[in-house]
Every structure is written in C-alpha cells, then in structure tokens.
C-alpha cells in the first residue's frame, strides 16, 4: 500500500515537474522544476532499492547538473524571456508525434504487465564497485577521457570571453 502511495506520489511529482520543465515560460522556473524532477527520479531509484544510484542521482544530477544549468540560466537569461513565447510554432505537430510515441510506448508496459518484484532489494554498492573495477574497468576509464574532453571543450569555449 505504502509502496503504491509512494510510487504515485513520485510519479505525480516527476510528471508535473517534467511538464513544468517543458511548459513553464521562465527558464529559471524550468530549471528549478528540472531539479525537482530529477529528485523525483532519485526517489524512484530509492523505491526500487537502488541505493547507490539514488546517491549518484542526488549528487551528480540534482546538485551538479541542475545547479550548473541554473548558473548558465542566470548568465544567459534575460528578463524578456518571461514575456516572449517559449514554445515554438511546431507545437501541434510535435504534440501529434508525442501522441504517436505514447501509443507505441504503451505496448511495452502492456507486454510486461503483471510482473512484480520477486525478491527484496539488496544493497548494491559493493557489487557495483566490483563491476566497475573489474569487467567494466575499461569503460570506466574511458568515461574519464570523455569527461576530460568535455572539460577541455568547456575551457576552450569559456576562454573565448577573453578575446
């Protein structure tokens, strides 16, 4: 029961805040909604018993990415954003496309209907750590190059200000 309440609450939070991200006119508000939405997703992870992921989501996503975005919004945003239209002209076709997507996606839950968890969640940190340093060491290391590349890029573009 509690499980269900939690799920529906989280779902409501996620969906509403996602809609906020997409629809709210102010980018600032959107960014705040994004933070909320990410937190909601973190909650879903927690409810699914993924402790490590939950932590990563909070740490990296909510605090890292959302804040970063906020930061940029503050830098690049302008007051006129609040009064100008934030949704472009192709919203109607987009809506139709999204409807089509929903129609396709609904087959997936329908296909997997009625599957419940067979066991209780167990702590995963150790297992994940083992995998990351074991079989997944190569991708794990690779990620660092990806990050390095992105940092390089950020530095490159940020430095342009000086010119």
């Amino acid at each position, binding site marked *: 029961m509690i499980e269900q309440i939690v799920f529906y609450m989280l779902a409501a939070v996620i969906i509403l805040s996602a809609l906020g991200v997409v629809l709210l006119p102010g980018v600032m508000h959107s960014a705040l909604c994004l933070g909320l939405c990410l937190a909601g997703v973190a909650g879903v992870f927690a409810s699914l018993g993924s402790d490590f992921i939950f932590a990563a989501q909070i740490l990296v996503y909510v605090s890292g990415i959302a804040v970063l975005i906020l930061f940029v919004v503050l830098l690049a945003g302008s007051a006129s954003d609040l009064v100008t239209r934030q949704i472009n002209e*192709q919203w109607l076709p987009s809506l139709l*496309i999204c409807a089509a*997507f929903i129609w396709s996606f609904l087959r997936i839950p329908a296909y997997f209907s009625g599957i419940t968890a067979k066991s209780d969640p167990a702590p995963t940190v150790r297992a994940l750590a083992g995998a990351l340093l074991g079989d997944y060491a190569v991708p794990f290391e690779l990620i660092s190059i990806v990050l390095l590349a992105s940092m390089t890029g950020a530095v490159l573009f940020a430095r342009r200000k000086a010119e």
Partner: protein
Amino acid sequence: MLEYVFILPLLSFAVAGVILAFGKWLPGRGASAGIAVAAWGFAQAAILFTKAIQGKLALPYEVSIPWFSVGSTQATLGVYVDGLTIAMLVVVTAVSLLVQIYSIGYMRGDPRFKRYYAYLSLFTASMLGLTISDNMLVFFMCWELVGVCSYLLIGFWFEKPSAAYAGKKAFITTKLGDLGFLVGLLSLFYCTGTFRISEILELAHIGFIPPAAAGAAAILLFLGAVGKSAQFPLLIWLPDAMEGPSPVSALIHAATMVAAGVYMVARLYAVYALSPVALDTVAWTGAITALTAASMALVCFDLKRVLAFSTVSQLGYMMLGLGAGGFTAGMFHLTTHAYFKALLFLAAGSVIHAVHTNDMREMGGLKNKMPVTYITFLLGALALVGIPPFAGFFSKDAVLAAALARNPYLYAVGAVAAAMTAFYMARALVMTFHGEPKDMKKYDHAHESPPVMTGPLILLAAASVVSGWALSRHEIFERLVNFEGVLPFELHHVSHGAVALYAGTVAVLSMGLGAWLYKSKPGIPAMLRGKFAPVAGLLDRRYGLDAFFLKFVALGDRLSSVLFIFDLNFLDAIAIDGWAWLTEKLSRIQRWFDDNVVDAAVDATGTVTLCAGRLARLAQTGIVQNYLLFIAVAVSVFAALAFAG
C-alpha cells in the same frame, strides 16, 4: 575475242580516271584518250556483232571471278554475253564514240572540258558494265552509277540553278524507282538464291520460281525501269534533264541510259514471262507513257524538250513491245531509236550551238544557214516518225504488230501516239528550219557547225536510214537476240503488212498535216491553243505530274520539319510525361527555374530531378528543431512500421 569483253568497261573506267588526273597534258585535253578508247570499244563491239550474226561465236558466253563472299553467299564479278548483250554493246559504243567526237566541237572552250570527258568515259564504263554484267548485283551497281553520271552531266553547267535542280530531280526521281528495283532484287534473290543472270534465267525457265513471286519481283524490278526509262508516272525528270549539254542528252537521255530499263526487262525476260500480270503491267505502262509523252510534245516549244518527250514516248513503245510479247520488237526499236534519237539530239545541239536558244519560237528558216544539220535532222525525224523505209518504220511497225497481237487496245493507244509523233516532229521541223526567221539577231549569228560536229551527224543519219532495213533483213536482229518463246500466252500472228501500211499512212498524213499547219497556217495552232487553253495548259503542266511529285516532296519536307520539332522538344519529354506534368505543377508553386547550365542540361527528367532536389533542400530549413521534428516523425513512422510487421 569474248574473253576480252571485260576489258571494255575497265578501260573506260581507267581512262576516266586518267583524264581527270592527267587530262591537262593529254592531246585535246583528254578528249583524245576518251575517243580512242571509245573507238576501240566500238571496234570490238562491231567485230563481235559481225561474228555473232555470222554465228561464229559460242553464245551465251559466261565467265566470272569471285568478288566477295559472306557466309555461303558469293558475289561475283563477271561477264555474260549473248546476242542481246552484243546488240546493246554496239549501240552503246557507237553512240558513245560519235557523241564524244561531236563534243569536241560542241564543248570547245568550256572551262570544265576535261571533266566533261571524264564523266562521259565514266558513264560509258558504267553503261558497258551494266550491259555485260553476269549478275544482277553488279547490274544494279552499274545501274546506279549511270544514274550518278547522268546526275553529274545534267548538272554539268551547275552555275545555272535550273541545271543543278534538274540534275537533282533526275537523280531522286530515278532513285524512287530504284527503291523498287532494290526490293525486287532482294526478293528475286530470295526466290532464286543467286544474283547470276544465267542461273536466274535457268531457274525461270524450268519454273523453279513460283509465278506469283516472280511476278512480284518482276513488277518491283520494273519500278526501277519506270524510273530509269522515264515511264509514266516517273517521266517528269527527263524533260528537265535537257538542261545538260546536248551531246549528253543524245548519249544518256536518248540512246543508252534511258534504254537501260528496257534492257533490264529484256535481260530478265524469262522472269517477266512467268507472270502475265507483270507483262501486262509493262505493256500498259509503256502504252500510257507513249501516249502521254507524245501528247505533251505537241504543245512544247523547247526544241530539246520536244525531243525529250519524244524519247519518253518511244521508250514507252519499247516497253509496250516487250510487255506485249514482242521481245525482238522492243529491242529492235531500242537499237534503231538509239541512232535516230541520238541524231536528232545532236542535230538539235548543233542548232542550239548556233543560235544559243532552245526556244523554237525564236528559230525558223535555219535550213538555209545550216544545210547539213537540216538534212540530217530531217532524216532523223523521218526515221522517228516511221516513214518507210527509214529505220523507225521497221521497228515501230514490229512493236505495233506485237501490240496488236496481244491486245487491240494496246495497239490503238500505240497508233494514236504514232500519229501524234508524226505531228509534233513535223511541227518541230517546220518551226526550226522552215519559215521566216523569228529572231533576226540570232538568225544572223547562226552558222553551220564545224565538221567535227557534222561528221557524227552524217554517220548517225546513215545509220538511221539503213539500220532498220539492214537489221530486219533475213531476221538478222531476231536471230541475234535469239529469243526463245517463253511467253505464258499465245501470240496471234498478225500480218506485218497490214500494220505497216496503216502505220505508214497515218505517219505520212499526220506529218503532212503538221507541216501544212505550221508552214502555211501558223495562225491555226495558235488559235487552237487559245481555244483549248485548259488542255494545252494541262499538257504544259505534264498532266500535273510534276505538281503531284512536288507535293509529295513538300509533304516530306513538312513531315521532316515536324519530326525535327518533335525530336527537339518532345522526345525526351515523352518517356517521362508524368514527370513533366508534375514539374509544371511544382513549378507553379515555386519560382524554381533559374538559368543555370544544369537546369537547361537535363530536359524534363532533369527538371523534375532538380525540383525534387529543391524539395529536398527545403527540408534543410536551418532551424534545428525542424530537424528534430523530422527525426521524431521518422522514428514514430518506423515504430509503426516495425509493429505493423
């Protein structure tokens, strides 16, 4: 003797080249070489003739060498000599020789004198080749070659547009007939599997060729003769061909080339004889030609054209003779006609040389100034008209006899034509040589031609006078051409005497009438002409045949330009009609047509391609969310597809 016959055309051919290349350094600017060869050729022919009528030759003589072979079919070059060949050889060489001698005087001072002799030699070569060829392929080749020589010689004075036009007209009109010849030749080949005349004749004799096929082939071949021998309705070219020098008219358009059609029919007579339809076609075409051409001559004022119409008419007689079953008669008439018509042309040439006009209305009274020409012309005219005992009497008589034997109507037509012949010849004679000079300046200028021209006239006049009588003695000619009865029908025996009497009477009367009218009552013909203007006009217009063919030509021209427009504008578009339509629609939506090379380069397909290209570019709006939308659309479509499958 016979073994050397093949040299005749080769030598002429070679001498043509020699004259063209080295004429400048030869005596007489090449004329001497041409004449020497022609003389030698005539000597050969004469010897052959003599021996043949003495029965000292083993005829038919045949020899050939392979020319080329494709698969199992072999084409040969060879010689086939029989009496017919010899008869023709004599005609060709004799007239050729005399004409070449005559031309020395006639063409004196012409800037292209050398080339003239080269052409004449080339023509002689081709004509000899045609005469002695042992197979129809080479026959056809020579047939075409004489046509080209005729083209070159008619248009010899090509600065005159009318001459250039006449040459072309002659060539194309005969070519029209040659199409029939070609197809006929092809079908003959598929009936017999060979081109060799001896084999064809043999197969025809033994009835190997189905009569229907033989008839078809024969009629198709006859189409060639219709063109070459200026039979109805392709007779239109010959009067215009008079634009050429008169000796050329004498040689080519009177004596030899135009007779080639007759010769061809005679050569393949065994094939014709298999099919009564073919023979009747020949006979009736000949009869109609004889009549129509004679009637045209009645109203013509151009001296040479009168002779040309006369030639056509006489060729019609030959065909009539052949078609009616009078093989010997036809060939006999060919022979005699060659002499007297060549004579007439050369005499006319002499007149024209003197007065520099062809128009008889500007002549008159010339008999005093040019006695030799006058007398020879008179003899030729008498021969042509068929006054006994001149040559024409014998041969025309034979033709009419054959016609009567075959079909009285044929005979009637021939007889009427004969009367007309007498009339127009009298008319021409009187207008040219008698009466008062119409144009004193020209009359004063006129003089008798030099001996080099009158000499041949006299020789030909002699031939015209005696050849008929001489050749019909002891049936020399008949034995020479050695015609064995292969006719599919019985020929009634007709008394030559009665026909002869009738014909002679008609000729004399008609000629007398003509002479009287034009000499004493010149007003009457003019009055008649005015009264029957439509008829005269019709005759002047040659029954509208020219107009008919010109319409044909115009139609061809129109068709060709229509096709060209089609080719230029539509052909590329037709295959892609729908695309073109689409293009048009699209083009209205967008102003898409600029003038770059590619656009023009690709016609309709290209245009459509380009339009599609522009459409493709339209998607590239530059706005990234449009791109994203396209992707989303695509993915949802694929999802739908994937699930649908």
